[in-house]
């Protein structure tokens, strides 16, 4: 690095540094950092997934077979923290890092050094958090929501709080970078309302991140001072209020769940037009729907708290606000279907995952609507019905979108086509087993099985066993995904064309495959026909 003074910087344009440490640890290149994020997310996906396998193994039949209840609680807590903060969020940041500059015609992210820092915080944050599993008192076991007073009983609280602080700093820096890139680095002619929907979805998501991550940091800091510094924010014995924490947490938590789904909406809005060979239906409505969902996310937080005994007026307000979300979400689903209507469709793996997303995410949306109805929620709340609901929106929603995006852009990243046969094997196995895994959980919840329990009455045995079998096979199916990725990156002989997909539109497809280390050194000329959403003027 020392020789890389200003004059020698031009050398970088010929390619990536050869030295492994220089290339990956000191990278300021959006593509390399994007790859780092995605590889990290994949690793965390398998770690979080292994926790889920252990959970499903314990729940395979009634009676405790494998572990003590306290360890089970650590697993459910860690599974959520790892999947949310380690897998889903970094995967979206990775996709944003890789694709946003390519989609808006920028040479790199606006703040490349901060980009490096925001990634390299994450491995340390997760080492800190996962290390608690090997400590004497065990890991956090109070659920990922960390409700006091229960979370204050945990010996590992400080580790988790500092890990959450680090993740928050990383997310905020990532979000600032994305906003700065989108607002300042677009190629001439790439007006805001000509941007791909994926870019729009990330712009809005980034604002959500900046708004709510500090709130989470504040909430967990109050936990920390309550436990170690004698404050009583949440301790009723000292005049505090445990419910205050829930309000603060969910003011973060609800926008957070949209942080995990809005970029997925963006991805699906790129993939469906490509494989339907037809412009996205209602581009402006799509953008507006994302923005209104983001706005609504700030005024619905207490629907996670219907059972804490809110005043009646508050329950009614939060119920109405929550139900309103169904309108823009419905618009998005109808628009995706209309995009397909009258198209000329082919069904490559990314499209298959996108279609599965639309159907299964909508099922998750339906159960979300049911959960919004307060009297019904009095029964559903904290049961497996809720577990089924959020896994439909997060696994078959967010995760399927990430997988779809990976298949969609992988040829652009590595320059080779993945195996379509094994991609489809991965798809069919995933889509079948994920439903065997999660659909019966609706029935369990309706029959009265609470969530976060390691053991249950024998009446719940049948569906738990079915669910566990689905879980094991869904988990195993993801090894196919790993195989497909390894094959495509290192072994595939089939070169990808620049366009990759016949119907693909947008700037990212105008650069060679694999995308060179530096792209758009000279701003591209924007042709409106080239934009994924077609003309937006009419």
């Amino acid at each position, binding site marked *: 690095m020392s020789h890389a003074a200003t004059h020698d910087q031009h050398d970088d344009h010929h390619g990536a540094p050869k030295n492994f440490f220089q290339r990956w640890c000191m990278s300021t290149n959006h593509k390399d950092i994007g790859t780092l994020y995605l590889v990290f997310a994949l690793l965390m996906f398998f770690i979080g997934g292994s926790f889920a396998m252990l959970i499903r193994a314990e729940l395979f039949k009634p009676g405790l077979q494998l572990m003590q*209840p306290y360890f089970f609680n650590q697993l459910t807590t860690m599974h959520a923290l790892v999947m949310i903060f380690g897998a889903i969020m970094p995967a979206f940041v990775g996709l944003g890092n890789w694709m946003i500059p390519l989609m808006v015609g920028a040479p790199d992210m606006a703040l490349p050094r901060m980009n490096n820092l925001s990634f390299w915080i994450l491995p340390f944050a997760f080492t800190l958090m996962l290390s608690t599993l090997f400590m004497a008192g065990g890991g956090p076991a109070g*659920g990922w929501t960390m409700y006091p007073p229960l979370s204050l009983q945990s010996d590992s609280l400080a580790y988790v709080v500092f890990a959450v602080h680090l993740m928050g700093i990383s997310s905020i820096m990532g979000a600032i970078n994305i906003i700065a890139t989108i607002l300042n680095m677009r190629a001439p002619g790439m007006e805001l309302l000509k941007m791909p929907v994926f870019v729009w979805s990330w712009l809005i998501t980034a604002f959500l991140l900046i708004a709510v991550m500090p709130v989470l940091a504040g909430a967990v800091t109050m936990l920390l001072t309550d436990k170690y510094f004698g404050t009583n924010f949440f301790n009723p014995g000292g005049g505090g209020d445990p419910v205050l924490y829930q309000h603060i947490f969910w003011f973060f938590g609800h926008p957070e769940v949209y942080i995990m789904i809005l970029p997925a909406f963006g991805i699906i809005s790129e993939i469906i037009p490509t494989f339907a060979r037809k412009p996205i239906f209602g581009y402006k409505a799509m953008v507006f729907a994302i923005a209104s969902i983001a706005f609504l996310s700030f005024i619905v937080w207490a629907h996670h708290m219907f059972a804490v*005994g809110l005043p009646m007026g508050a329950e009614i307000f939060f119920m109405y606000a929550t139900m309103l979300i169904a309108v823009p979400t419905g618009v998005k689903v109808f628009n995706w279907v209309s995009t397909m209507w*009258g198209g000329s469709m082919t069904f490559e793996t990314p499209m298959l995952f996108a279609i599965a997303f639309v159907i299964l995410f909508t099922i998750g949306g339906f159960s979300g609507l049911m959960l919004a109805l307060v*009297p019904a929620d009095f029964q559903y709340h904290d049961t497996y019905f809720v577990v089924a609901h959020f896994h439909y929106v997060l696994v078959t929603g967010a995760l399927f979108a990430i997988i779809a995006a990976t298949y969609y852009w992988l040829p652009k990243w590595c320059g080779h086509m993945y195996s379509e046969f094994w991609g489809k094997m991965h798809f069919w196995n995933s889509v079948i087993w994920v439903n065997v895994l999660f659909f019966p959980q609706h029935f369990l919840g309706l029959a009265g099985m609470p969530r976060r329990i390691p053991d249950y009455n024998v*009446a719940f045995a049948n569906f738990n066993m079915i669910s566990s079998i689905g879980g094991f096979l869904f988990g195993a199916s993801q090894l196919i995904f790993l195989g497909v990725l390894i094959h495509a990156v290192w072994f595939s002989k089939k070169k990808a064309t620049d366009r990759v997909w016949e119907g693909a539109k947008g700037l990212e497809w105008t650069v060679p495959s694999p995308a060179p280390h530096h792209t758009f050194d000279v701003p591209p000329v924007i042709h409106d026909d080239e934009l994924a959403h077609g003309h937006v003027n009419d």
Partner: protein
Amino acid sequence: MTSGGIRRSFTAWAALALALFGGVAQADPNPYQLNMQRGASTWSQVPYDLNNISLGVCVVIGVLVFGAMFIAMFRFRKSRGAVAEKWSHNTMLEIVWTTIPVIILIVLAYLATGGITSWSDTTGSQMTVKVTGYQWKWRYDYVDYLGKPISKVGFMSKLDTQSDQTRQLGSGMDPYAVKVGDENTYLLNVDKPLVVPVDTKIRFVITGADVIHSWWVPALGWKLDAIPGIINAAWTNIREPGTYRGQCAELCGQDHGFMPIVVVAKSKPDFAKWLAEQEAQSAAPAAAPAAASTAAAPVSAQTAAAPATAK
């Protein structure tokens, strides 16, 4: 007779469907139960109906939307020679599919609002029971019944011994063998149930002693968090005598899954008899264990504060 056979099989199917989706006749939960139970209180029909109506609405919308998708996937395939059209707008259609969901939502919101209003009204109750959540058991204190204060009737209620032994890691005992009569009660039975009268509006005041718990008996139609420092209020009016089982529904530590709730509803005369026995027991000086367990007896100031939080 053929028609008789058809009628019989129809009745059998209807009974099965009713059992699976309605869940009225059997004790809940039961294996392969698919839907929420109707419940046993005057209010529990509300969530049950809302559940069925909203599920029905979702199924209809789902059939229409997914149906359109599958038709599109079949008709507009490139392999069938479909040529992509160019349109990407249809204002009329967009207005329609924004307006119709709004109308459906207004109807659902109207129904749900009525349900919340009736649930929140704890006035006019004839009995008060204080429920306190502990790690990991429940405490029930009887406060008043038919306008008369009850003194010193209160007890802890925790997982029954048989379930507790069976649930230990490596116990080698069979969860299927934990039974009361024909009913499997593994993890759903307690040493001492809450006994209440039927046809009585009972107000529960619910709080937590250490961490947050949630008191949930599905047959009553609701759950409510038991939070330290806060007293929540809710009510029920049970229609039929019986035994109703539930569980703690808020993660409260290692034995969260092992603190069930059992409510035994008795006819009014039976309940009066039971209550008199309890009062006599606690009055007798020999009943030392009962006296010990009333150490954390209700403070009347706390229960007086309850209506404030219910509003």
